[in-house]
C-alpha cells in the first residue's frame, strides 16, 4: 500500500503550497515552543529558557538561569509542552482518520462520544482497580472503552451513503450522557482517595505530564503516524464509497478494522494522559482540508503538525491568561472549536442532514 500511495501523484496537492504551509506550521510550532518554555506565572528570560533545554540535551552550561528556574523549565514546562504537542498531534490525526472512515467531515472523537467511552474506561481503571496498576490500566481501559464506543457508533450511523450525520450526532449525545452517568456512579461509590484521583484526572489537564505518559504518547504517536500514512491512499479511495474502494482492490473490511483499532488506541492514550480535550480532531483536519484539499497523503502529516501547534497554543493560553491560576485546556479548545463546529453544521444543513 505504501508503494502505491507514493505513486499516486495525481492525488497530491500542488507541491509548493504544501511545502509553504508545512514550513509555516513548523515555524509557528518552534515559536510556540519558545513561548511555552519562558511564559508562565514566572516569566523567564527567553534566551536562557531555551538554552536550559539545550544544556540539558548537550550537557553544556550556557544558560544563566538559577537552579529552581531551570527546574521550572525542564521539569514543569518542557514535559508539559511535549505532552501538549503529542496529544494534539494524535487527536488531530485520529480526527482526520475518523472523518475518512465515517466518510463524514463532522466525525470527531469528542463529538461522536468515543472520548467519553474512553473516559469511562479510564474512570473504571482509576476508581475500581488498584492504584499500583494505574500506569497501564488507565490507558488500556481507556483504549477498550474507546474501541467499544467506536464500534457502536459506527454500527449505528452506517448507511450505504456513508454515515448519517444525524445518527452520528445523536449517538454521540446518547453515549456521552450514558458515559456521564457511569462516571457519576463510579465516583459516587469511590472512597476519598480514589475520588481525589478521579476528580484530578477529570479536570483534563496537561499538567500531569510524567515520563511514563510522555513515553506512551510518543510511542503511540510514532505508530499512528506510520500506520496511518501507510493507509493514506486506501483512505482516499474509501472516500469514494465502500464498494468503490473494494472495486479498486482495497480490502475494505480489514482497512476499517485497522483504522477503528488505531483511532481507539490514539484516543484512549490521549484521554488516559490528559482527560477529554475536545474539538482538536474536528478543527485541525478541516483547516488543512480547506487549504490543501482532502488528500490524506498530505492531510495526515499536516494535521499532526497543526494539531500539535493548536494544542500547544491552547495550553499556553490556558495557563497564562488567569495566572497564577490556570484554566482547563479543554475549555480553550472548546471555546475555539464549538463555534467552528456550528459553522460546519450550518454548512452541512443544505446537504440533507
Amino acid at each position: 500500500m505504501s508503494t502505491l500511495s507514493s505513486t499516486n501523484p495525481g492525488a497530491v496537492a500542488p507541491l509548493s503550497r504544501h511545502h509553504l504551509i508545512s514550513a509555516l506550521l513548523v515555524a509557528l510550532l518552534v515559536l510556540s515552543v519558545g513561548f511555552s518554555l519562558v511564559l508562565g506565572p514566572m516569566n523567564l528570560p527567553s534566551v536562557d529558557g531555551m538554552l536550559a533545554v539545550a544544556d540539558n540535551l548537550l550537557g553544556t552550561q550556557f544558560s544563566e538561569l538559577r537552579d529552581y528556574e531551570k527546574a521550572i523549565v525542564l521539569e514543569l514546562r518542557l514535559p508539559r509542552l511535549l505532552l501538549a504537542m503529542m496529544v494534539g498531534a494524535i487527536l488531530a490525526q485520529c480526527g482526520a482518520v475518523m472523518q475518512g472512515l465515517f466518510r463524514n467531515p463532522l466525525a470527531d472523537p469528542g463529538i461522536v462520544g468515543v472520548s467519553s467511552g474512553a473516559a469511562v474506561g479510564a474512570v473504571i481503571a482509576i476508581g475500581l482497580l488498584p492504584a499500583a496498576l494505574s500506569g497501564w490500566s488507565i490507558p488500556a481501559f481507556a483504549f477498550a472503552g474507546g474501541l467499544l464506543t467506536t464500534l457502536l457508533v459506527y454500527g449505528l450511523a452506517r448507511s450505504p451513503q456513508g454515515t448519517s450525520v444525524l445518527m452520528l450526532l445523536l449517538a454521540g449525545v446518547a453515549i456521552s450522557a450514558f458515559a456521564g452517568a457511569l462516571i457519576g456512579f463510579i465516583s459516587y461509590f469511590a472512597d476519598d482517595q480514589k475520588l481525589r484521583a478521579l476528580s484530578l484526572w477529570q479536570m483534563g489537564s496537561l499538567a500531569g505530564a510524567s515520563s511514563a505518559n510522555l513515553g506512551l504518547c510518543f510511542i503511540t504517536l510514532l505508530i499512528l503516524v506510520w500506520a496511518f500514512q501507510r493507509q493514506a491512499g486506501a483512505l482516499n479511495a474509501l472516500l469514494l464509497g465502500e464498494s468503490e474502494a473494494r472495486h479498486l482492490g482495497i480490502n475494505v473490511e480489514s482497512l476499517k478494522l485497522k483504522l477503528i483499532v488505531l483511532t481507539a488506541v490514539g484516543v484512549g492514550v490521549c484521554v488516559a494522559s490528559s482527560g477529554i480535550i475536545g474539538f482538536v480532531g474536528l478543527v485541525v483536519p478541516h483547516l488543512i482540508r480547506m487549504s490543501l484539499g482532502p488528500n490524506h497523503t498530505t492531510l495526515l502529516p499536516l494535521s499532526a503538525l497543526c494539531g500539535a501547534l493548536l494544542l500547544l497554543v491552547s495550553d499556553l493560553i490556558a495557563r497564562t491568561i488567569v495566572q497564577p491560576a490556570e484554566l482547563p485546556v479543554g475549555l480553550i479548545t472548546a471555546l475555539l472549536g464549538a463555534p467552528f463546529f456550528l459553522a460546519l453544521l450550518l454548512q452541512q444543513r443544505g446537504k440533507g442532514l
Partner: protein
Amino acid sequence: MMKQTILTIPSLKCLAKNKTILSVSDITIKTGELSAIIGPNGAGKSTLLKAVSGDTRPEGQIFFHGRDLKTWPAYERARHLGVLPQSSAISFPFSAHEVVALGLTPLSLSAREAARSIKAHMEDTGCWQLSEKPYPMLSGGEKQRVQLARVLLQLSQAQEPPLLLLDEPTSAQDLGQQHSILKLVKALCDDRGYGVMAILHDLNQVLRYCDYCYVLGDGTIQLKGNPSECLSPSNVEAIWGYRPDLFFTTAPSTAALI
C-alpha cells in the same frame, strides 16, 4: 479480432434472508461485446451486477478469463474489472482531477506516466476542462464522466481484455449525454476489445447500441439474445406489461419502440 471469452457464469444463485432472489445460468461476455441487463424493477439486475463485481458472495461460480473470480488477487482483479457506480456522492472537496487519480490505486505507474494517463482518460471522456473543479459541485452528468474516466484509468494497465460493469450509466444524464456516453462505451468495445455489461432502462438504447441482451424477470433470465429478436412487442408486453409499437429507423437501421 478473435473473440475471446471474458466472463462465464455457468450457474449462479443469490440468497437474501434464505430466499432465492436471483438464479441465473449460462451468461457469457466476450471481448468487444456490449451486453445489456434489462428487466422490470426488482427483477434482479443490480443483484446480478453486485455478484459479478464482488460486492456479494453468491452461490455458484463466476469465471473471469477462465479463472474463478474469487481466486483473483485484489489488485489484479481491480486492473481488469471496473465498475461505474450509478451515483457517487463524496462529501469531501476532492477536485475532479483527484477523483480520477484514485483510479491509479491498483496500478503502479511513474509520476509522469500517471499524469499523462489521467489527462488522456479525462480527455477521452470529455471532462478534462473540469479538472480543477470540486467534485461535489459538478452536475450529475459531469460526475458520471469523471467517474468513468477514473474507472477507465483503473483498467488502463490490463493485460487481458477488461470487463466494465455499468450500473444505469445514463440515468442522471440528458439525452445528448446519454448517447455520448453509450457511444464512448461502444467505442471501447469496438476499438479496445472491452467486454461491457450494462444495466439499462431505455430499450431503444439497448436496440441501438447493444450486441446482446439478458432480460431478467423475477430473478431469472427470461430471454437472452440479439436485442432486436428479444425485444419484440409481444415479448416486451409479457415482461413489462406494456405493448409498444415497433418502428424501424433507417440510418442507422435500428428497431425502435414507443
